[in-house]
């Protein structure tokens, strides 16, 4: 406080001022105007005032009670009086003079009476009269013409006991009740420090008093009308000492109405009551609460009935069913809790401008819906009479069309230039060109057919006419010579040799291999050799039979049934060959005819592969030949391994011939012709094919040469044209 207001003219003066600068009057009565203002620390009155203000701001009950007691003239302790400043003491004295002497009745304990009851200045007149002993007589005693409904309301026989009319707080949690769950506006008992467990009917008694006095604003004519009514039969004892009980009759009226016995005529006979007072009685007649049950809705309806403005709402609430009333009571308690917990003095937040700019709520929600009026009662429709419903018609009328945004992209000139450039770059890629003309396959087909037909014709001519133009090979490969020498040495021995023949070629190449092998097999047959066939191919056994038949036809003296045994198919590839090299009797125990091969006359006494005099391999497969060399050759020791191979496998087998792992080899028609040349065979199969073979090879060479020249010339012309 930095200013002093002049009590005479109201002008503001500095705190150091002694006299008002406006009216020139002394601001302090006991201060010498000539004296200088007291120092700041010497202003005890201000300190006391500040201390008083601090005590009030602390909000302690004791301070409040002390203050109240001081205002009501109650005695204080000596210490407190000694601390009271002089100006306050004068004020107290002045108040004591103005305050009438307290009544002789027993004073109400501060803990039991609300604060406002202690302040007589704030009490209404009718309460003051009660306190002063002018207790209004019961209506029955007073007038005798009390209306029947009021008699019934106040009749002690019909009034339940105090404990019976204790409000049913079961549906209100203790916490909510303690913290103001039962919200009665401006009830004096709703003071800090009140324990919720102490809430009883007595706490609600002043409700009527307070409601009448402050919140509900009951008109004075109502009290006058009530006071003019005759006394009830057994009115409550209106003792000023028990002022709380003085209002029980009104509390009872609120909590325990007897609407069933209220007659409209009685109310109208009462005379001065306003007309709207009859309506609650009619509505209350529909809902009769149970005795001892505090019906908040009834209370609310009664209060609303007193207020003329809320009459329609009270009517509608009275007409609500019980379950809805319970919900409303809960809402009532929740609202009270919210109001008691809420901080009423919070300042309204102010949104800064930049934050408001970031929240363009108007863009998302063009028009915010107006807050719903919870007290609004639906006037029409099937939900008529209900409260707190969403206003359907209002929403429709408040609806506005959403803003329309343009879907057109807004680009700058620079972006448009870039887009155009990008479009020119990809326009060629997206353009589908005409498919290239499909080249005709007719020339290739004609060429292929011509080559084939020419080759076939030439071969046929050579076979048919067999001119004998091609000379037999004069140069014999050394491996063919070794092959021939080995065969001759074995067949020239006194004991016919026993040869293991591995037949390992496909039927597709049987035309070549069977022709070559036929000459070799004939020579072995001519030497009465024993032949044991085994094959790694499924078709091997059949090819072996065919080969034996062909060769045997040329050697009639050879007893193929006794000297030839077909051990059949040997499954397992290289593993089977390893097993055969290790133990041939278990690897190939029987022939294709089911005969125990190793017990036959041909193979009797043989237990290993090395017991054979030679191993002859008829093959067109490099891999299988290598498996024979790798798996069997190490097991046979010095036993010669002779190979009759196809021309296509010969180049891959040549290294094994060079290394000596293959003792001798005949490959292709060339090798067969050389072998026949060595054996001096006159009617050899290969010799009959030799002319055709040479003609075919020559023609193929010519085709290759002509083809190379032709494509070379075409490339030259093509390059020249391009150049």
């Amino acid at each position, binding site marked *: 406080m930095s200013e002093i207001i002049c009590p005479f003219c109201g002008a503001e003066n500095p705190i150091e001022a002694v006299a008002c600068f406006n009216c020139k009057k002394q601001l302090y009565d006991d201060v010498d105007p000539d004296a200088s203002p007291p120092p700041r620390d010497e202003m005890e009155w201000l300190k006391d005032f500040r201390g008083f203000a601090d005590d009030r701001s602390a909000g302690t009950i004791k301070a409040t009670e002390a203050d109240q007691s001081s205002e009501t003239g109650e005695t204080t302790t000596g210490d407190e009086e000694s601390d009271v400043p002089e100006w306050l003491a004068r004020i107290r004295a002045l108040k004591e003079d103005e305050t009438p002497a307290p009544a002789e009745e027993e004073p109400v304990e501060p803990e039991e009476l609300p604060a406002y009851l202690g302040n007589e200045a704030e009490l209404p007149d009718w309460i003051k009269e009660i306190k002063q002993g002018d207790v209004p007589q019961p209506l029955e005693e007073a007038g005798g013409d009390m209306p029947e409904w009021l008699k019934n309301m106040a009749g002690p026989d019909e009034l339940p006991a105090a404990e019976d009319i204790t409000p049913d707080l079961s549906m209100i949690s203790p916490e909510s009740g303690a913290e103001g769950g039962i919200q009665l506006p401006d009830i004096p008992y709703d003071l800090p420090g009140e324990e919720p467990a102490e809430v009883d009917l007595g706490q609600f008694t002043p409700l009527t008093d307070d409601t009448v006095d402050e919140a509900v604003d009951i008109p004075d004519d109502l009290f006058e009308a009530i006071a003019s009514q005759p006394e009830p039969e057994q009115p409550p004892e209106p003792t000023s000492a028990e002022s709380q009980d003085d209002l029980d009759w009104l509390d009872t009226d609120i909590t325990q109405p007897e609407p069933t016995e209220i007659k409209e005529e009685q109310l109208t006979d009462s005379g001065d009551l306003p007309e709207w007072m009859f309506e609650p009685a009619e509505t209350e007649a529909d809902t009769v609460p149970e005795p001892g049950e505090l019906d908040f809705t009834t209370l609310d309806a009664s209060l609303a009935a007193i207020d003329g403005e809320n009459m329609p709402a009270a009517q509608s609430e009275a007409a609500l069913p019980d379950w809805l009333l319970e919900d409303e009571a809960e809402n009532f308690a929740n609202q009270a809790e919210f109001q008691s917990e809420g901080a009423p003095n919070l300042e309204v937040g102010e949104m800064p401008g930049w934050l408001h700019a970031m929240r363009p709520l108007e863009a998302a929600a063009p028009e915010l819906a107006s807050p719903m009026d919870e007290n609004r009662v639906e006037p029409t429709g099937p939900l008529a009479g209900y409260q707190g419903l969403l206003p359907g018609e209002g929403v429709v009328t408040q609806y506005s069309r959403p803003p329309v945004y343009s879907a057109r992209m807004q680009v700058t000139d620079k972006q448009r230039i870039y887009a155009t450039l990008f479009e020119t770059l990809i326009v060629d890629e997206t353009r589908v060109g005409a498919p290239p003309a499909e080249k005709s396959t007719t020339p290739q*087909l004609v060429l292929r057919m011509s080559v084939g037909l020419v080759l076939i014709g030439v071969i046929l001519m050579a076979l048919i006419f067999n001119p004998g133009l091609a000379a037999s090979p004069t140069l014999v490969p050394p491996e063919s010579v070794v092959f021939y020498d080995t065969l001759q040495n074995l067949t020239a021995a006194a004991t016919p040799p026993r040869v293991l023949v591995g037949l390992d070629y496909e039927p597709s190449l049987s*035309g070549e291999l069977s022709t070559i092998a036929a000459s070799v097999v004939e020579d072995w047959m001519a030497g009465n050799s024993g032949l044991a066939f085994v094959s790694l191919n*499924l078709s091997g056994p059949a090819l072996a039979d065919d080969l034996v038949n062909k060769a045997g036809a040329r050697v009639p003296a050879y007893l193929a049934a006794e000297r030839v045994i077909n051990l059949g198919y040997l499954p397992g590839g290289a593993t089977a060959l390893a097993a055969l090299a290790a133990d041939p009797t278990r690897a190939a125990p029987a022939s*294709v005819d089911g005969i125990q091969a190793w017990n036959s006359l041909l193979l009797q006494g043989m237990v290993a592969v090395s017991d054979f005099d030679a191993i002859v391999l008829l093959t067109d497969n490099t891999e299988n030949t290598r498996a024979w060399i790798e798996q069997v050759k190490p097991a046979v020791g010095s036993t010669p391994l002779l190979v009759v191979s196809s021309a296509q496998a*010969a*180049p891959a087998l040549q290294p094994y011939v*060079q290394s000596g792992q293959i003792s001798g080899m005949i*490959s292709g*028609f060339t090798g067969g012709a050389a072998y026949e040349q060595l054996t001096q065979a006159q009617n050899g199969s290969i010799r009959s094919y030799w002319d055709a073979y040479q003609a075919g090879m020559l023609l193929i060479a010519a085709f290759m040469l002509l083809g190379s020249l032709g494509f070379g010339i075409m490339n030259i012309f093509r390059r020249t044209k391009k150049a």
Partner: protein
Amino acid sequence: MAPDLLWTLIAFFLTILVLSYVLGDNALFRFIMMVFVGISAGYAAVLIYYQVLLPRLIIPLMTVPAPGKAVFIIPAVLGILLLFKLSPRLSALGNPSMALLTGVGAAVAVGGAVTGTLFGQISGAISPFDLAGVQGGGSWITQLLGGIVLLGGTVCSLAYFHFGARKKDDENTGSQPVLIQIPARIGQVFIAITLGALFAGVLSAALAALIERLAFLINVIKPLIS
């Protein structure tokens, strides 16, 4: 009609149908290809049953006394498990059989390759330089030159398959050393000759088969004409 003549006529017409491929791919050629595939599969199934399963598994299981049956039960179980490979969901049951086959096959192949091919080829590459054992009555000079060409071709061919390169600091890509590049080029010539020889062998084998088939046709037709 004798059976041989019947089968000969069948073989004749089948050969004609195969040779029709000269005129391009046609339905007759595709038909005869399917016939060959079917016959081959049927023949293989019959052959495996009569020459493998029956004599080597089924008969022993039925005839061999109990103590010796275990030797045949194991491959039978493994063979049955191998059939589960037909089902994608149960194919895992065939893994033990496949593991056995793969493991044994790899062991046999590796062992044979080391002892049969690797050692054998090294010995074959050295032998021409053994001038004491000149073979074939040739001179030692010829054998020595042959050995040098053989050894040089082998080394150069192996150098061609050397794909390693050393990266230099100032180059982003590496390059082979000169000692590798030159033999690699020479080896490339040897490889080309080898591939040419293989192609010639394939062509020669095919020509021989064609000649044999044409001779068969002539041998069939000639009696009919005469």
